[in-house]
């Protein structure tokens, strides 16, 4: 059974805009416009879209912070609108640019306090803290006040804080924002392991497409509050970026190679870029064809990056 279900969910905001000296006009904006989505347990879903597309609004409806103006939301079988408090025990939330840790106290204290907030049994809590401290190498940070931690260190603390009560679902709103490469990789590895070992379902919003590529099995794209794409990463690439590129280094400069169905897009000295359709040719076959006639030094297969794919999707929508 799906852990997250949205059925034709909308959220409308009403603003007042000044027209004239005293009169005001009601302006309605649809932040989320008829989204239907269903997420199965254990999935890692990348929820992406341009700024203001409605990502955060959706997450807020899934946590019960916001009440939808239309449609049905179910999270772990609960209606967030009615059972917000019960739902808080089943979900973990990390907002990338906010903290839920106790700023002036050692990191360790935040973990202890969360045990009282969520009323987690002592044994279970100790096991979890030990496991996460180990996985994220938090040991040396435990006695430092949170305000002294670097952003990357703090994010590791935030992730732990969000998971100590064994949530079924983890919502992450831009978890890697502002992090350096090393910290990003660490966060991603951790999330992958939490998903695998604990079966936690992950829904994350991000602008970093590497997050999506390295973490997610599924991609959901929204724009102007509407769902524009929902499929697996592989399928997305196949559909929106059917071509792969083979970069070959020959022993010496040569005229563009001529292989049926393969197009040479660029030549730079002994290096040539060959583009082919992923369904018509395999990389192995193309390499074999080249090797039969020409001496090769090196080869690399370049997959289209997801960024290009997304640009395509936004463009089409």
């Amino acid at each position, binding site marked *: 059974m799906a852990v997250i279900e949205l059925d034709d969910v909308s959220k409308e905001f009403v603003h007042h805009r000044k027209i004239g000296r005293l009169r005001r006009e009601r302006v309605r904006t649809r932040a989320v416009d008829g989204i239907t989505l269903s997420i199965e347990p254990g999935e890692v879903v990348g929820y992406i879209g341009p700024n203001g597309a409605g990502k955060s609004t959706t997450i807020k409806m899934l946590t019960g912070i916001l009440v939808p103006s239309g449609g049905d939301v179910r999270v772990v079988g609960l209606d967030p609108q009615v059972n917000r408090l019960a739902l808080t*025990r089943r979900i973990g939330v990390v907002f990338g640019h906010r903290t839920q840790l106790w700023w002036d106290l050692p990191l360790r204290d935040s973990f*202890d306090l969360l045990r009282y907030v969520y009323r987690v049994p002592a044994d279970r809590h100790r096991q979890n803290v030990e496991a996460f401290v180990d996985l994220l190498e938090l040991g040396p940070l435990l006695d430092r006040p949170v305000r002294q931690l670097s952003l990357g260190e703090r994010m590791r603390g935030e992730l732990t804080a969000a998971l100590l009560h064994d949530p079924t679902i983890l919502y992450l709103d831009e978890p890697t924002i502002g992090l350096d490469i090393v910290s990003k990789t660490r966060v991603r590895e951790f999330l992958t392991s939490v998903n695998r070992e604990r079966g936690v379902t992950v829904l994350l919003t991000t602008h970093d497409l590497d997050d999506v590529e390295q973490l997610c099995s599924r991609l959901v794209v929204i724009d102007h509050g509407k769902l524009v794409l929902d499929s697996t990463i592989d399928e997305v690439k196949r559909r929106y970026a059917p071509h792969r590129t083979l970069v070959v280094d020959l022993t010496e400069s040569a005229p563009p190679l001529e292989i049926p169905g393969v197009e040479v897009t660029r030549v730079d000295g002994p290096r040539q870029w060959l583009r082919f359709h992923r369904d018509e040719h395999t990389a192995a076959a193309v390499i074999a064809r080249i090797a039969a006639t020409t001496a090769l030094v090196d080869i690399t297969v370049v997959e289209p990056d997801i960024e290009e794919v997304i640009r395509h999707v936004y463009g089409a929508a």
Partner: protein
Amino acid sequence: MADAIGLPATYRHLVGARIRGQLQYRLSFGLYVVAQFLAAFADLLAVLVVFNRVPVLRGWSIEEVLYLYGTSQVAFTAADLFLSQVDKCAVHIRQGTFDQLLCRPLGPLFQLSTIEFELRRGGKVLQALLVMGIAAANLPVPWTAGRVVVTLTTIASAFVIFGGLWVITSSVAFWTVGSTEVANAFTYGGGFLTQYPFDVFSSWLRRILLLVPVACVSYLPAAWVLDRPDAYDFPAWARLSSPAAAIATTLVARAVWRTAIRHYRSTGS
């Protein structure tokens, strides 16, 4: 379950964490407590100065006014210490951190009153207790069981009424961010008014104060305890209506707060 955690334990730990966090800034904390303690005396001084000029204030002697001041101040400063933090919801709404409060399995009021706890406000509570002690020792009428009970229930009811007023005025922040000043006029202003016998106020102000219900906070029960007529000429039962006013305020505060949360959840910040 052996280690089931109750709300009191959660409260203790969250408040404890807040205090430990604030003690990181020891000097600022210490200075503030001393300043609060002294400022509270300036408040009392104002009352005493009036009595230096006139022996009786609209029929109220200084001992009687001290009793009135003491009961109202103990309740007000305790409410200020334990409940006034709810007005920090305005800050949380503006900074967007109110969402996080809604993501935890505790009510937002409970969370605000713990995570925003200000121990330094305790200085004023100490001063109020001191004055209350002096007033109790100099009460012009004998202490009977009835007077003790009424005094204690009055303080408890006044605590609840002030807390309710704080919740109601804080709720305004959900509609207009930056409304704390208006809210303070009602809460701190209301607290100030309860220090004086209402006989000194003009009749229209007296009527308004009955509506708010700060008259029930200390003035009416004080008139009962001290065996004096009150400015409203109320019968005895009406003078003992503080617990009823406390319940009514709680119900109104609850309804207003719920409406505010519902409004927030439908409009966001």
